[in-house]
């Protein structure tokens, strides 16, 4: 349980700094630091157990479906890393207290830093690889926040994005690898996985797993070819660089390789990939470091190089190599963190990090200089400093392998060359900055930093020395415990001594030292050679890369999706065609066994009319009024078809909807151009025509196939029960208001919503009103022909009476609320046409919106009425009630529902048409003769 508190404490700590805004900085630091300090205390409390090679575990269920549990494990390796994370973290926090200037968001910085700490602790303490990945990606995110802390600076933004992209991409690859492992092993539990070496290495997915995991590790640890993000991450505040980019985050990749070492290492593939990558990284980093004028740039490439060294060590796959790697992790963390902090101090106190401007600082900041010299010596691998020891082990290991066959000698040779460069850039760091003449035109007058800003550097530099001199005493147990958790019980024989006698590694060190000094002395020559190569700014290359990808994406999208509606429509139709054609091809004969109806003259005439009219609509579609007339012809034939095939309700509905639609289209046509332009080239028309004919063919085939096959449906239920249970003889109407009344409820809602939407569309519409017809003839003067008015008025009461009739009989005979509503609407519309808006509106006193809402409400209430008797929504009810005088009358709840339909239909259709009609009345430019 206590283990669980380790990451939790730092996570809580991230809330402490921002929430203590009122206090002064030191106090805030103190409060914040309490959290990691407590976490550190917890870790340290396990020292004995860890050194005794015990693992401390804590587990809690989280997402079993994912195989993800909260599971922590503290073993030697985790202990080592936790120590680094927390201890160096505390030092960095102290350092940052002085590094950040007054106006900077102190609390936010600490919050990010401790979130990062949490993430790192999560990685190293995880006993579940999925959970490890969880924290792995968190480090990417938090490091993004930290690198981009100065988000107003372009290099910070770019650096942060680059780091996030590369490490994020690696993280995704890692996830793939870990998921594969999980599936292979059947668990994400690290204990289980670590015990499955044979299973994993014997699987044919091993190589995929290895590559995916290594991509994750290499990106995080800035290995070739992914290393370029690290130098650009130097745009971060220096405490961040010191912490993330030397001691912790970049080591996460190394940690991962060490963690998975027992299951993944030891194969040819591992050796080839890891060691060659490490070697290349080592050399390129070391070489590049020498040419950087920026202090932090130098340190960044040096870090790359040292990470390459560690990787190479792990890549060798030998046990001693692994020990050396772990030892170098410790050493590198100490000297590199202190060097970064020193660089930060220099930057902080002089205002620049450019080594061409800096020089002779020894005079101004001797203490800092001394500390930097200690750390660089460790970095260069000078005896007495900790870097020397691990480097010796490294050299020894490079000599001890033969995996590359006859060219195995190349590894120690390249290692020595790398070491020489290491010496050279370390020398440069010291000589160019602290000596090399006197400082001139620095932005600030340099002096020693505040006392406590130097403390972290002092501690780390001291460690470099102490470990260098008393390795076994200081880190012996730690190294042993960490190595044991990687390598298991049988540790190889090694000894941590300052002196190993004269041997080949020592020779190599000497060569590297001499070579390094020589390299540094002749650096001008090297600089000139290097100057011949145009310097690649990876940031620009990366940016351009992303830009190219983006442009390619944009280019593609513009071609693929040009936003044209027609194209989308085409795709939709095409897709419909593509899915429906294959099944129809399986149909071995279109016609089925059902007997067919005979054909007579009228039917043929109707069919001919329908086809001619619809084809003519296509041909003349650009003549709009004409197409409207053609549409009427089609509508009429369709209604006749409904009549012929025993669907009187449908015929009535079709007819009335038809008229309303025509009126609507006529209203609209006034505002639209009278003719359509043709935008399509002939090729496109041929394409469209083909699709159209094919879809028509599909639908026609479906119709015929369906019509000629016997069918057994549920409809006999309706036929049998319409009268008995629904109380009506018009089955269609009973279905509409009772059996499937819910559909009708939805349908009138649709109508009502359409009316609301149209009202919205009409509101504030600015329209173009033509003052003459397309031929240029001005509109007729006679607005309301009187004979038309007279007859319209005469027909109105009759039409209303018929609508009542249609409404009331609907339950038993063709008709019903919908048709009746439409007839009423049409009768009213006719009045609008005959008399105009101005005349009619004051006389008609109907609020269409209220009509809609009343209609809906009536339907609704009829529906919920049954709730009182514990009946479901729309439970119908009908009975014969004996009225005095009148006699028995049938009363049915369905009538109420139908009344709702009736009112909604009137309200909606009138709201649509009358509003549209009224559109012109207000601001219409009146012809001159109408005063």
């Amino acid at each position, binding site marked *: 349980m206590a283990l669980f508190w380790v990451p939790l404490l730092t996570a809580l700590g991230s809330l402490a700094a921002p929430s203590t805004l009122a206090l002064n900085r030191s106090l805030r630091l103190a409060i914040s630091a309490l959290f990691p300090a407590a976490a550190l205390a917890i870790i340290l409390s396990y020292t004995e157990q860890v050194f005794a090679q015990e693992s401390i575990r804590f587990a809690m269920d989280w997402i079993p479906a994912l195989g993800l549990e909260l599971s922590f494990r503290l073993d030697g390796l985790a202990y080592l890393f936790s120590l680094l994370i927390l201890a160096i973290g505390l030092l960095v926090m102290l350092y940052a207290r002085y590094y950040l200037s007054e106006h900077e968001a102190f609390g936010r910085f600490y919050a990010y830093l401790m979130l990062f700490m949490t993430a790192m602790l999560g990685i190293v303490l995880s006993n579940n690889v999925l959970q490890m990945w969880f924290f792995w990606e968190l480090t990417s995110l938090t490091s993004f926040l930290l690198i*981009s802390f100065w*988000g107003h600076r372009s290099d910070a933004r770019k650096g942060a994005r680059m780091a996030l992209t590369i490490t994020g991409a690696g993280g995704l690859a890692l996830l793939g690898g870990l998921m594969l492992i999980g*599936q292979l092993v059947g668990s994400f539990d690290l204990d289980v996985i670590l015990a499955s070496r044979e299973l994993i290495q014997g699987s044919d997915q091993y190589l995929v797993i290895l590559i995916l995991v290594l991509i994750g590790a290499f990106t995080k640890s800035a290995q070739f070819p992914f290393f370029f993000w690290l130098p650009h991450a130097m745009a971060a505040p220096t405490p961040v660089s010191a912490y993330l980019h030397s001691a912790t985050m970049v080591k996460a990749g190394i940690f991962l390789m060490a963690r998975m070492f027992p299951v993944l290492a030891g194969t040819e593939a591992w050796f080839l990939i890891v060691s060659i990558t490490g070697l290349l990284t080592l050399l390129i980093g070391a070489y590049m470091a020498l040419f950087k004028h920026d202090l932090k740039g130098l340190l960044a490439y040096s870090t790359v190089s040292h990470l390459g060294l560690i990787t190479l060590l792990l890549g060798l796959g030998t046990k001693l190599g692994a020990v050396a790697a772990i030892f170098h992790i410790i050493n590198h963390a100490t000297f590199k963190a202190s060097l970064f902090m020193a660089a930060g101090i220099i930057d902080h106190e002089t205002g620049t990090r450019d080594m061409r401007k800096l020089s002779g600082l020894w005079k101004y900041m001797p203490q800092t200089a001394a500390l930097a010299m200690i750390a660089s010596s460790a970095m260069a691998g000078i005896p007495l400093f900790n870097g020397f020891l691990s480097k010796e082990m490294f050299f020894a290991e490079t000599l001890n392998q033969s995996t590359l066959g006859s060219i195995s000698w190349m590894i120690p040779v390249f290692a020595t060359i790398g070491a020489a460069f290491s010496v050279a850039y370390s020398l440069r760091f010291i000589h160019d900055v602290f000596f090399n003449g006197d400082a001139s035109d620095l932005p600030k007058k340099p002096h020693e930093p505040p006392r406590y800003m130097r403390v972290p550097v002092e501690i780390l530099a001291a460690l470099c020395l102490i470990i260098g001199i008393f390795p076994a005493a200081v880190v012996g147990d730690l190294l042993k415990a960490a190595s044991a958790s990687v390598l298991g019980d049988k540790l190889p024989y090694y000894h941590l001594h300052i002196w190993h006698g004269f041997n080949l590694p020592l020779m190599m060190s000497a060569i590297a030292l001499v070579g390094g000094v020589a390299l540094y002395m002749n650096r001008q020559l090297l600089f000139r050679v290097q100057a011949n190569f145009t310097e690649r700014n990876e940031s620009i290359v990366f940016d351009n890369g992303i830009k190219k990808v983006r442009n390619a994406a944009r280019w593609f999208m513009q071609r693929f999706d040009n936003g044209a509606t027609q194209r989308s429509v085409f795709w939709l139709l095409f897709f419909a065609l593509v899915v429906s054609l294959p099944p129809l091809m399986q149909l071995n004969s279109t016609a089925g066994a059902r007997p067919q109806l005979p054909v007579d003259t009228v039917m043929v005439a109707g069919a001919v009319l329908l086809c001619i009219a619809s084809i003519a609509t296509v041909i003349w579609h650009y003549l709009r009024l004409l197409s409207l007339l053609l549409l009427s012809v089609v509508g009429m034939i369709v209604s006749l078809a409904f009549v012929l095939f025993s669907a009187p309700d449908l015929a009535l509905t079709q007819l009335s909807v038809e008229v309303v639609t025509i009126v609507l289209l006529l209203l609209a046509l006034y505002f639209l151009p009278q003719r359509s332009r043709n935008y399509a080239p002939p090729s496109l028309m041929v394409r469209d025509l083909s699709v159209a004919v094919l879809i028509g063919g599909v639908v026609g085939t479906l119709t015929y196939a369906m019509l000629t096959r016997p069918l057994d449906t549920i409809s006999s239920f309706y036929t049998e029960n319409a009268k008995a249970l629904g109380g009506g003889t018009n089955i269609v109407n009973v279905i509409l208001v009772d059996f499937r009344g819910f559909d009708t409820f939805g349908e009138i809602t649709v109508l009502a919503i359409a009316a609301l939407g149209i009202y919205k569309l009409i509101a504030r519409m600015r329209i173009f009103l033509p003052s003459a017809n397309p031929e240029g003839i001005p509109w007729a003067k006679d607005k309301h022909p009187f004979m038309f008015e007279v007859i319209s008025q005469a027909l109105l009461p009759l039409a209303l009476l018929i609508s009542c009739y249609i409404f009331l009989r609907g339950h038993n005979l063709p008709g019903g609320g919908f048709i009746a509503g439409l007839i009423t609407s049409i009768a009213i519309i006719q009045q609008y046409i005959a008399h105009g808006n101005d005349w009619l509106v004051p006389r008609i006193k109907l609020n269409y919106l209220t009509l809609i809402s009343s209609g809906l409400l009536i339907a609704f209430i009829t529906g919920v009425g049954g709730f009182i008797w514990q009946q479901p929504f729309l439970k119908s009810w009908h009975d014969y009630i004996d009225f005095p005088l009148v006699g028995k009358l049938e009363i049915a709840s369905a009538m109420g529902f139908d009344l709702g339909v009736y009112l909604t239909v009137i309200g909606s259709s009138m709201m649509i048409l009358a509003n549209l009609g009224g559109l012109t009345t207000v601001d219409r430019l009146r012809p001159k003769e109408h005063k």
Partner: protein
Amino acid sequence: MNHLPILPILIPALAGILMLFPTPASSIKYQRWLAYLSFAAMAYVCWQIVVSAQYETTLYVLGGWQPPFGIMLLLDHLSAIMITLTTLLAFCACLYGTAEEQTTGRFFYPLFMFQLMGINGAFLTGDIFNLFVFFEILLIASYALLVHGGGKEKTGAAVHYIALNLLGSAFFLIALGTLYGTLGTLNMADMAEKVALLSPQQQAIAKAGGLLLLVVFGLKSAMLPLHFWLPKTYSAAAAPIAALFAIMTKVGLYSIFRVFGGIFGNDAGALANIATPWIWPLGIATIIIGSIGVLAAPSLRLMIANVIIVSVGTLLLSFVINDGKGLSAGLYYLIHSTLVGGALFLIADLIRIQRGGAQDRFVIARSLAQPGLIGSFFFIAAIAAVGLPPLSGFVGKALILKSVIAANQQLWVWSVILLGSLVALIAFSRAGTMLFWHVSGAKADDSKKAKPAQVIAISLLLLATPILTIFAHPVTLYTEQAAGDIHNSMYQVQDVIHNSEKVSHDGHH
């Protein structure tokens, strides 16, 4: 009589109807209170629904007409999830809209309510024609809402969106006609039973009809190549509307789950899983095209729209992975992506408002009035959307990845999902740095600060993602049940049908 299943339809319907009556002077206020009231009622109903679905699947027979003759609502885990999700999203969107959109056009609240009625109905109905009706309700409401606020952009997008959907509805009806013409029934469970009994010749016809439904639902869910409407529509719509639309693609997906999992599912004999061979390549292609769109997007809203397309592709795949066994993961991801998608649209709107003329385009512009607040919102939403820890996107994607077993499926699904995440990562980091840090010298416009309602709405939506992560276990347990319900509910309804055939109808009172 347990009316629970119909309440999610009736409550918004009643609220919408009441809002249309003429009211005293401050009618917007009245409408707003009605809206809040109905959301409060819905919150209670959702709670009841989630609990009720936990221990039984409820059938609600409208008008008392037993299936397959009447229309039937089906309340199971799956519909419970969808209803609750819709309510939460809609509440936040509506809350956001109270700040501004309620007055930028008429009928904001009633249309919002009708939209909810349509969506909830689509999630609850067990009848395929009734599904069509609810589709139309939610569509017509969405048309009206899309043009809310007015302006060229909206009108243009509306033409595109509506044109496509009208065609979609036409195909819906053709499909329904074909299915009725072969199966002779409209109840989904009854259809599921009858599909297996078709003669080979009828199978061909029914298959054509069934696959036409894929066109319809694919259009709604923005499956490639029917996705073109989405970026245009979502980026043009007013923010709360766009946020609400985040559930719209899910209606299409839900219908795919129900119809192609339930009717044409594993038990459909020769017509089993007819959509699977289509969904595989199209789902993958949807992710790819969406990702390309994410990269290419010149503005935040377009980018988010494409992120939604990617999530649609992911969800489509989750349906076909491992013959439906990935669906539980998909449902978890669905919850996550809907809420995050909604939040992103709201955040994008705040950004658009505060950045002045540059709107949400990725160009240098003035600094935001509240960079810290909105930046945090954006960062959280982006993490969730990309699928990074510690938020729910990670859980969702990992669940889906984990559900893939077959090696050939693994190769495709894993690579597109992971690469899609990478693209999203690149795009979001670019967008974030561009919008929040790459600022011109112009002074921030403090008059455009976010209103409390807007902040609360976004916070609520974003709060869901850590909660989904922390409580992933109970949620995944529920989604597992829901995935199982695609078959189980069908069986249950079929039992009811068989039993009611034996027992004569108990008649009217």
